[in-house]
C-alpha cells in the first residue's frame, strides 16, 4: 500500500505537557547524565534559570501525555505505512530557549513532508516526517521535534 502523501501537513493531535521536576530527574538518570542542572533547583537558579532545566532531548517524554497510546505506530498505520518495513532515520530538535520545570507546554503533533527517493542500491524509499511543536503559556514556540522514518519498498 502506498503512503498517503495527501496527509502531509495534517495536524494529528494536541496535548498539554506539564514539565515536572521529578520527571526531568528520571529522564536525566535514564540518559546517565549526572549534571546537577537537571536535579538541583538552587544550582539551576544560580545559573540564572527559574528552576531545573530539561535535558536537550527531554521533550521526547511528552509521548506519555499524548492522547494516543503509541503515536508513531498508530500514525504510521493511518498513513498507510508498513511498520515492519520502516526504520527511524533521523531525529532533530530545535530549542528556542531552555525548558524549565514548572512550565506547562502545549504540544501538537503534525505530519511533515512525505517524499520518495531512489535508494542507493535501487528500489524506492519513502521518507515520512512526523513533527511535534511545543508552545509555552504565552503561545510562543519553544521547541520543535522532527522525526524522519524511512520505508523501503
Amino acid at each position, binding site marked *: 500500500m502506498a503512503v498517503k502523501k495527501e496527509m502531509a501537513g495534517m495536524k494529528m493531535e494536541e496535548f498539554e505537557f506539564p514539565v515536572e521536576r521529578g*520527571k526531568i530527574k*528520571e*529522564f536525566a*538518570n*535514564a*540518559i*546517565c*547524565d549526572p*549534571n546537577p*542542572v537537571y536535579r538541583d533547583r538552587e544550582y*539551576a537558579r*544560580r*545559573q*540564572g*534559570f527559574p528552576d531545573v*532545566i530539561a*535535558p*536537550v*532531548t527531554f521533550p*521526547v*517524554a511528552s*509521548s*506519555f501525555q499524548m492522547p494516543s497510546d*503509541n503515536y*508513531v*505506530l498508530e500514525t504510521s498505520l493511518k498513513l498507510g505505512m508498513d511498520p*515492519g518495513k520502516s*526504520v*527511524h*532515520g*533521523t*531525529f*532533530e*530538535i*530545535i*530549542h*528556542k*530557549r*531552555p525548558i524549565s520545570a514548572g512550565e506547562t507546554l502545549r504540544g501538537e503533533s503534525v505530519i511533515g513532508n512525505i517524499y520518495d527517493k531512489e535508494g542507493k542500491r535501487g528500489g524506492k524509499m519513502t521518507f515520512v516526517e512526523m513533527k511535534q511543536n511545543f508552545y509555552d503559556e504565552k503561545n510562543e514556540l519553544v521547541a520543535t521535534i522532527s522525526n524522519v522514518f524511512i520505508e523501503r519498498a
Partner: protein
Amino acid sequence: MATAKLYFEDVKGDETLPSFQLTVTRTHIVKYIGAGGDFFPIHHDEEFAKSVGLPSVFANGLMHGGMLTRVLTDWAGDGRVGRYKIRFASMVWPGDTLTFAGHVVKKYQQDGANLVDCELSVVNQKGESAITGEATVTLPTRK
C-alpha cells in the same frame, strides 16, 4: 546569568569535545524506555525480538541519542544547545561499548548570535557508527 562555562572567544576552530564511554546493559535500555515512553516491543521484549529474527532486544536510538547530548552540555554549559540532529546508522545491542564524542567544525556570528557548529558521533567497540550527529550551540561573549 552567572559566569558562563564557555565563552565564544575561547572556542578553537578544531576543538575536540570531552568524550566518554559506556557499556550498554538491558537495564539501561528498559530504564530509558520507562523514562522516554517508546514501548515498541522490539526494544524491551526479548521473545518478541527473537520472533522477528533478531538476536535480542536492541536499544532505542534516542537512548544513546539522549546520552550523546552530554558531550555538548559538559563542554558548552547548560541551556546552550539550539539545534541537535542525529542520524541512526546501526543498531546498538546489550553488551556494546559505546564511545560518545564530538568536535567543533565551524564558529561564526549570525543575526547577532555567536554560534558554534559541532559534529558528534556514537561508535561501538568494533568501530562501527551507531549515530552521526550535528549540533549548533549559542555562546556568550566575555564583554
